[in-house]
């Protein structure tokens, strides 16, 4: 395969033996040289750590002690006994439940509304405003919402007070803290998904829709039987990226708004790994948690690969 490809380009051209040899020798080393920087860094900071995490999960260690003790799968057994692990596992899925459906339904709905607007002057305005949180740093977003959520002087409780309701201590109550963090994450992510959906809707050839209108299809039917199926690759992309976002990036609001509390009610797996390793210094148990988290992510990866394959067929 290597040879046929290189010959194809210069089939009609006579080549001197010297040129062929020079090209051949360069063929061997050069691509690896170009790959080397990326490959070395990738192995050092991504792949080797992956295996090392698994190695550490069978050890008893606290970062400082020069000696690591091999203890087999004891860390995993200890983990299964801890309430923290089960709570954070359940919370990881609760975050997904509070974030993923919202991130599909609302952005898609708003994007559909935007396609109905004919004025080209207002459209960029809506897009620009909605997209703003995407470019803001998540730490700043968290600061703003920490202030909005402030129980005694925050805007939300003032606002609720106007309607005659009692203020809520959003972040310090077990029932409201996790939904509140999900809400901040939703606020941050909404504009991005809205824009992706809108772009995908714009990419649907207008002839399809016109044909359906001529055939007398209602707008509801056009949506269910035409737009939604055509959007499926985009929906899938958003689904996968949002699942990862809601389990990985949500670390930032967890650490900034609640520190995983009250009573671990907002701790997810990623935050648990952070706490067990960098606050309790139990590297073994933290690595075991990380390994289990990774296994969960492999399921998501599997979906992603399926999605990529689908894309390839779609484009071919």
């Amino acid at each position, binding site marked *: 395969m290597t040879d046929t490809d290189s010959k194809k*380009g210069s089939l009609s051209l006579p080549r001197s033996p010297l040129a062929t040899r020079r090209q051949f020798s360069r*063929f061997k080393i050069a691509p690896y040289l*170009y790959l080397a920087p*990326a490959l070395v860094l990738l192995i050092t900071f991504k792949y080797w750590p992956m295996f090392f995490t698994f190695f550490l999960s069978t050890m008893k260690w606290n970062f400082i002690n020069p000696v690591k003790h091999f203890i087999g799968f004891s860390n995993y057994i200890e983990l299964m006994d801890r309430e923290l692990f089960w709570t954070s596992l359940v919370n990881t899925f609760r975050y997904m439940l509070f974030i993923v459906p919202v991130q599909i339904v609302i952005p898609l709905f708003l994007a559909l509304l935007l396609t*109905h607007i004919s004025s080209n002057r207002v459209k960029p305005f*809506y897009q620009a405003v909605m997209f703003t949180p995407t470019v803001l740093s998540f730490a700043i977003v968290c600061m703003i919402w920490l202030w909005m959520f402030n129980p005694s002087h925050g805007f939300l409780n003032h606002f609720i007070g106007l309607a005659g309701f009692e203020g809520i201590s959003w972040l310090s109550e077990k029932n409201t803290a996790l939904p509140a963090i999900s809400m901040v994450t939703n*606020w941050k992510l909404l504009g991005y998904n809205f824009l992706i959906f809108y772009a995908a809707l714009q990419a649907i050839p207008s002839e399809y829709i016109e044909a359906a209108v001529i055939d007398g299809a209602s707008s509801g039917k056009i949506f269910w039987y035409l737009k939604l199926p055509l959007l499926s690759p985009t929906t899938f992309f958003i689904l996968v990226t949002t699942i990862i976002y809601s389990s990985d990036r949500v670390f930032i609001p967890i650490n900034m708004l609640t520190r995983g509390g009250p009573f671990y009610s907002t701790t997810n797996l990623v935050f648990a790994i952070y706490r067990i390793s960098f606050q309790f210094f139990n590297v073994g148990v933290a690595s075991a948690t990380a390994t289990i988290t990774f296994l969960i992510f492999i399921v998501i*990866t599997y979906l992603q690969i399926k999605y990529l394959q689908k894309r390839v067929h779609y484009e071919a």
Partner: protein
Amino acid sequence: MKRKINIRFLPTHIILLIACVVIFFPLLWMLSTSFKEAGEVFTHEIRLIPHAPSVVNYVYVWKSTPFLHWLLNSAITAIGITVCQIMTSLFAAYAFGYYDFFGKKFLFLTFVGSMIIPFAVIMIPNYIIIAKLKLQNTWWAVILPYSVNGFGIFLLRQYILTFPKELFDASKLDGANSWTTLWRILAPVIKAPVFALSIVFFLDAWNMYFWPLLVLTENTTRTFSIGLQYFVDFEEGQDWGAFMAASTMGAFPALAAYIIAQKQIIRVYITSGLK
């Protein structure tokens, strides 16, 4: 006729406007609070425009925090990460687009596959590496683990593959080696996607939180996001006028860039999402 259409779309506009208010109001509230004096911050009154606007909070933040250090650290690490990611991506993508070689498919999957490794899974070993190299509290601590980006390799390879192979061959016939071809032939045409990708990389790096939190532990070495967090802890979470002033100043560079290059940035994110 035109009026009629407008009225028909009134509910649509109302819903979209409500969404815009929900998105934009918290930002205005941040700005408003930052210009209020303590007495006005802690009232039960909702006022967007302060009674007596004052910059006292800004002055306080400026005096009590190494704010310029934070911004500088954020900027340098973000630029460093962007440059490293672009260079490693460009070289690797060039190898995948220009050459055929043994193990090509496997290596490509290795790169693209790295995108789905969650940071939390590799964070402890990364921390150990940085600690062993004694790099904590340096820019390199933040940059090094983030100097490769599988997505960049994937996207740039896509562009290089659409590039006509004849031009590569012609350049080869002219006696140019692959290095010259990369800079003379490929670089000029790949400038636009590289620039676009740089914006996405830069904003991502600028917004980094988790990793700098672990490796930057001194007040003057922190990046902005981490500094903000410690400022809040230090003030025991009470001085909201100052916190909002700090947030406003931190948000300013990104918002300014967004206002200037809004259309380009939006387009970049669309293409990166759809690819």
